[in-house]
């Protein structure tokens, strides 16, 4: 009995699964269109590009939810499509690489800033 209580206590202390700091769940249209939400990992992109490339040259606003990007625009070479064009990075036909989120996720920036309240990110 004591051992079970100890195990339960340990399970309660063990950290919950945690997305990487700065990951963004994007689901303006994906779920409604029957595909997985997009997971945008900031950590992956900032190793390769400075913030200014996407947030200045490509025109992404710095607020999760403020950007309204159509898949057709990406295919036309706008927003993600500036790089995801089969030349700099994989192209728009590799659906599952970006549309990789669990169905039903709440959109927004995730990854646990410890000071997550009362903020809106």
């Amino acid at each position: 009995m004591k051992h079970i209580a100890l195990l339960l206590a340990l399970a309660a202390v063990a950290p919950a699964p945690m997305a990487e700091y700065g990951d963004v769940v994007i689901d303006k249209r994906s779920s409604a269109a029957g595909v997985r939400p997009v997971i945008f990992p900031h950590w992956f992109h900032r190793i390769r590009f400075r913030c200014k490339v996407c947030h200045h040259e490509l025109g992404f606003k710095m607020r999760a939810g403020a950007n309204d990007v159509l898949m057709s625009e990406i295919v036309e070479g706008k927003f993600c499509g500036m790089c995801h064009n089969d030349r700099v990075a994989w192209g728009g036909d590799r659906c599952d690489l970006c549309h990789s989120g669990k169905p039903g996720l709440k959109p927004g920036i995730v990854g646990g800033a410890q000071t997550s309240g009362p903020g809106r990110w």
Partner: protein
Amino acid sequence: MDRRSRIRGVRCLAAAACLLAGLAWAATSLWQRLEQDGIHDPKNPAIALLQQPAEALAPLPRDTAGNMVRWVAALESGAINPRTNILPETEVRVRDDDIIVAKYGSLPAVKFPHRPHTLWLDCSNCHEHLFKSKAGANRLSMMAILNGEQCGVCHGAVAFPLTECNRCHSVPNASLLRAAPPPR
């Protein structure tokens, strides 16, 4: 072996096992694997093609918060060399000065260094909609920052989190006071 030394032996072994388990946990828990991070769909067949955070981030300078990476140090040391622009005509602007704000409050004053910010960002990312380009013209509020405004647009979301008070509040107020005039 008497009973007491046997108990001591068992305790030592148990402590060593706990230590090893703790070290193993610490080594694996810095970055969650994608299929276990709670947001990636483990049933997605393409998940195996995506880079794991640990593979990319472990070689970079270690931090104690956020991505556990000192991003500015990674950039300045050359550990990473992210592109500054895609379009050849884009002017890449870097500014070097420091600005001291929030003087003489209950915390040390804030040093805002333009250099690390402009290595990553363009002037237009902050000016003029977040901050006026005039020292003293901006009314900063820690409450607004905690609420995701001003510095909090990035700090607390992608740049180091707001738990790291003394990284910004880094200048002792006493050091800003003018030296007392010499006695006559």
